[in-house]
Structure formats: C-alpha cells, structure tokens
C-alpha cells in the first residue's frame, strides 16, 4: 500500500456537527432500504384486522358525514353550491395525508429506539418512508372521492374541476414537505421532552379546525374575529386545503401570492426539520 492512500478516509465519526448534513449520496445508497420500509408499512398495517384496507375508506367517509351533519346541517356553513359532503371529503382527504405524515414521523425516534440503538443507517429514511407509504392511502381515498364525484355529477350537481389540477403534484409535495418538516421537528423534541407527545395529540386536532378543513376560507374571513381570521389565512395548511378544493371542485379562491408563500414556507420548515433532525440523530440514543 502506498502512503498516499493513507489520508483518504472514507468517513469520520466525531462529535462535531455540520449544520446541514444531509448526505444525499448515502441516502441514495440506502434506497433499497427506503423501498423495503415502504413495503413493510403497506403490507403490515392492517394485518390481522377484519376490514383490512377498508379502514382507509371508512375513516374519511365517517368523518365527512359527521362534519356535514355538524357544520353544514347544524351550523349552516355555506359551501358555495357544492354538495357539503363532497366539500368535506375533499378537505379531509387532503388533511389526513398531512396528518398521517406528521403523526407518523413525529414519533420516529421513540418508535424506532430499538433499531436506532443498534444499527446505523441514515435516520431520515424512516420519516421519508412514512411519507411515501402514506401516498397509497391518499390515492385510495382520492379514488373514493372520485367515485362520489361521479355519483354527484350523475345526480345533476353542478361540478367541475379547475385548470389548477395541473398543480396537483406540487400540492402533494407541499403537504409532504410540511408534514415531514413539522414531524421531524416534533420527533426531535419528543426524544427529550416527552410532554410533546401529549401536545401533538390534541394540537393536531385543534390545528385542523384552524386550517379551513370544515369550512371555506371566505367564511372564516367573514365570521371569525379579526386575529383568528388572519391566523387562518396565513396558515399554510389552510392555503393548501383551500387550493386542493379549488382545483378539484372549483370553489373558493386561489392566488399565486398565497401559493408561493405556502411553497416557500413548506420548504423552509422542511429544511429546519432536517437540521434539527440531524442534530438529534447523533446523540438521541443517550437521552431517549
């Protein structure tokens, strides 16, 4: 061996952290693991349940029915000519993807303590796989949505999609980035401060009501107190939900400013998530 090779170290294990240490080469090397995790998640979730993947369908349907009863029949919230059930189903479909990504990745460290304590692989693989495997659920739920869409069309409801449908992949990306970003931030915090698990539980629930899921953004601006309306408007999630309904049902409003605002914020939150997550992964096993 020549001495010139002696300085070519493959990698260094040390206590020092780089700020953004997302090693794409390494993640690429572990791509098979990512796919296997996705497969595992999909295959094993509903093993030994009677209804199996039907649960994917039942959850949003029942929630939509309840929302329609409470908010539209009882609360008289106007959905602008769209059948309220369909309106709610669209919102819930989008929300539940975000919600699943968030809650799935927010206990990454705690749930995988066992694996993480024994072998190394890029930890980001875990939350990434959750985001990907939740896509399946999303597409099944979208299928249900399309089914009801066609049903309502056949009964003569006045429905149409919007040219914004082309933005669908970007909306998907934004939801994934937001869910993943916030989830990673929370997962890092739960390793040290367990209070966070409690906060996440009901926090997400509350956030849904502040994200224009069961009502259109215009109603919020009209009826909420000033500061709440501002909060709901600037909440990137209500932008996404509203945008989602806009392209699928041509209802509500859309602005490019709002779109870019949401996109930028999603990317920023995702990057913050990565930074915090990387900081945590190096030493979490000592504090978990």
């Amino acid at each position, binding site marked *: 061996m020549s001495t010139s090779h002696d300085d070519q170290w*493959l990698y*260094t*294990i040390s206590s020092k952290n780089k700020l953004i240490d997302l090693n794409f080469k390494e993640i690429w090397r*572990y791509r098979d693991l990512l796919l296997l995790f996705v497969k595992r998640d999909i295959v094993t979730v509903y093993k030994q349940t009677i209804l199996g993947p039907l649960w994917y369908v039942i959850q949003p349907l029942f929630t939509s029915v309840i929302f329609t009863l409470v908010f539209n029949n009882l609360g008289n919230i106007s959905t602008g000519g769209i059948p309220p059930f369909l309106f709610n189903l669209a919102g819930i479909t989008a929300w539940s993807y975000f919600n699943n990504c968030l809650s799935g990745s927010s206990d990454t460290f705690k749930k995988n303590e066992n*694996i993480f*304590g024994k072998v190394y692989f890029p930890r980001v693989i875990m939350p990434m796989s959750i985001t990907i495997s939740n896509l399946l659920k999303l597409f099944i739920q979208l299928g249900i949505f399309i089914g009801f869409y066609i049903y309502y069309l056949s009964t003569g409801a006045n429905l149409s999609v919007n040219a914004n449908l082309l933005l669908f992949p970007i909306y998907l990306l934004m939801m994934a980035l937001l869910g993943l970003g916030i989830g990673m931030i929370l997962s890092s915090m739960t390793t*040290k401060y367990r209070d966070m698990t409690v906060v996440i539980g009901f926090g997400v629930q509350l956030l849904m009501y502040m994200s224009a899921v069961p009502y259109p953004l215009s109603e919020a601006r009209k009826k909420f107190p000033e500061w709440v309306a501002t909060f709901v408007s600037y909440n990137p999630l209500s932008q996404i939900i509203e945008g989602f309904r806009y392209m699928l049902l041509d209802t509500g409003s859309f602005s490019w400013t709002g779109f870019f605002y949401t996109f930028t914020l999603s990317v920023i939150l995702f990057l913050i998530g990565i930074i915090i997550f990387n900081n945590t992964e190096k030493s979490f*096993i000592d504090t978990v």
Partner: protein
Amino acid sequence: MSIILKATNISKQYRLGLVGTGTLSHDLNRWWHRVRGKDDPFLKVGSVNDRSVKADSDYVWALRDINFEVKRGEVLGIIGKNGAGKSTLLKILSRVTSPSTGEIKTKGRIASLLEVGTGFHPELTGRENIYLNGAILGMTKSEIKAKENEIIEFSGCERYVDTPVKRYSSGMRVRLAFAVAAHLEPDILVIDEVLAVGDAEFQKKAIGKMQDISKGEGRTVLFVSHNMAAVKGLCSRVVVLENGMSVFEGETKNAVDFYLNNQSNESGAGSSEFKDVFSRKKEMQLLKVSTSDLSGRVRSTFMQSESILIKIDFKINEYIKGMRVNMGFYNISGTLAFVTSSHNLTGEGLNAGIHHLELIIPSFLLNKIRYNLILNAGIPGQKILIAPLEVLVLDIEGEHAGGSTHVERWPGMVSPKLDWRFNNL
C-alpha cells in the same frame, strides 16, 4: 499493512440520574456557551466510570481517551469486564451514538453484529425479513438476492422461509438473523457476543463462520467478548478496557493474561469478608471466603485448566464437635451442581479460635459457566450454625472442551475430564 481505522482520543460522557430533570437549564447553558464560542461547560466535570464508588458529579465518563489503530485484515479483540466501556465503544464505532470528544477515521464501511435480528418484523415472512434485515444492515437488494439461497441454507430454516416470523421459535429467529448478519460483506465487521446465541450445534457453525470471515477471507474484524477462549482463538491483537480507559494493548496472550491477573486488584471479586455473620448463639462467626489460584492470587475468573483454592476463615468461640462446613455450587438459575462438605475434617471437634479451611477444586472439573457459591455450616440433626449464604461468584472460562478446539460450552453443570480407554478384546 495499511491502517484501515484510526481512533483518536475517543471519550464518551453520560449523564447520571434522571435525564429530564434540569435538562432544559443545562441545555440553555450549553447553548449559551456555544453561541459565545466557548467549550461545553458540562464536559469538564465528571469522574472515572467506577460503578462501585458513588459519583460526586452528575456526569460520568463511559470512555476516556481511547486510542487505537486497526490494520487491514487484522482481528482486534476488545475485552473488559461488564461496564468497562466495550459496548459504548462499539456503539460509537457503529455510529449509533457519537463520541463526546475525539474522532474515528475509517477507510471502509463498518457493519456491526451488535445484536442480531434488529428490525425483524413479526408479520413478514422469513424471506421478506431477510431482505429487510439485510437492507437495514447496509446491503443492497441485489447483494441480498445474490446471497439469498446461501443465507437460507445457513440458517437451516428452508421449510419455514415463507412463513411469518412470528410463528418461528426464538431459536429459529436467532439463526435466521445470524445467517443474514454473517453474510454481510463490510470492510470492517464488528462482532459483539454473538457467541451466546443458538443451540450448541448452531454455535459451532457460527464460530466456524466467524473464523472463516476473520481468517480465510482476510476481513478486518473488531471482536468484543467476555469469552477468553474465543478471543484467544480468533484475535491477533487485543485491547483491554477497564473503567472506560484502555489499560493494555498488545498480543492476545499477554492481554488475556493481563486481564485475568488484573482482576485481583478489583474490589470484591474473588473475596468476601463478613462482619456480622454469626450463628444464633454466637458459637461460630464466618469471617472471610476467597477464591484464588494455587499461588494465592485472589480473583473470580478462572480457566478450566487451573485448580482453584477456596479459603474459608471462621471463628469458633467454644469447643464444637460434629460440625461441618458445606459449600454448594449452583448455576445462575439456582440449580445445584454439587455440594462438598468438610465433615471428615471438622467433625472430630474444633477448639475455640480462628480456623482457616482450605478446599481445592481440581482443574477440568467445572464447566464453563458462572457458579454461585453458597456456604452453610451446622451439626446435622442438631443445629444450624450458618444458614445458607451466597458468599462468592465464580466464572469459569476455557480453551478446550473435551479436546475439541471449538469454544462452545458443553451442556451440563460440570464437565469433568475423565478417562476414556479402549478395551478391545
């Protein structure tokens, strides 16, 4: 040979007590120091990792300034008592946790057999788990595919490979997991105590495989174990850890000798003194029990090839006739291996005063297990002087079991070396 891995000044600090109390204030303090570009204030405090002494600070060093180099193709052993820092070092090497100070540079991929079976999912079949587990350990799908049949065959689970792992017995699960791990091909392989898995037959296979890996295939291996025989069989060089510090580094034989002999310095091991073990009417008082080799060096770990001298010191306050001291050898699950008694010697009558009894356990009698020594004394049918009392723990290690060079443990509570002979007429 070129150096493939180099560790410089590796230290690891842990926090004692309840993590979570006061962490926020410590975290803020740390952050404040970092913002001003100063050192972490809590890295300065802390004491040596000696568990028997009560720490005077909230922080403890699990490892302190460890330096070593590994050459390509070398099998380096890392030995030390429980709590010496072996596992911490392995965790750092396998990147599960990061060191508090220092750095490790490596020229190859490190994979560990830290604990086999990590990430097995009970609902997936054996085959699916081979892929998942292999990928977790750093293999790509095509690498696993190429070795799939070999892995299945090695595990001996062919019939069940398409059955969910939750229906496997624990032994099968371990075998499958080890099979996957053994077929890894990293540049540096870290092995920790895997010798303990499986039944005797599988252990033999596993050790054979490890010998192949380290000898035949010329792989670099870091081998961490309590098993001196395995260390002697596999390693070319050994680092001895004690209380988080490297106390010896050198050739295997010297290192093992150092490790075994050095135990005499350690408090408690191999010797117990008693202050208040009396018989009910204070006729007898137990003073001290110790185990040592024949030259008198007190310790608790012995090779099978050594004779063990057990000394029992006690005090008699008035003449006693018919009393005996019994020493029972139990395994850790509490099963009795045998009892030996002093009745021939002490039954004749003992005068008041301090007596020193000695008992020699011949070499090649005990098995390679841990024994609990339980002492009692009394006059049969009349009175109990000393109720059964756990006095010492004895660890037996070995190089050769029944003439075989394999280091697996033989079943049984003892494994005496007996005379076999032919009588062919």
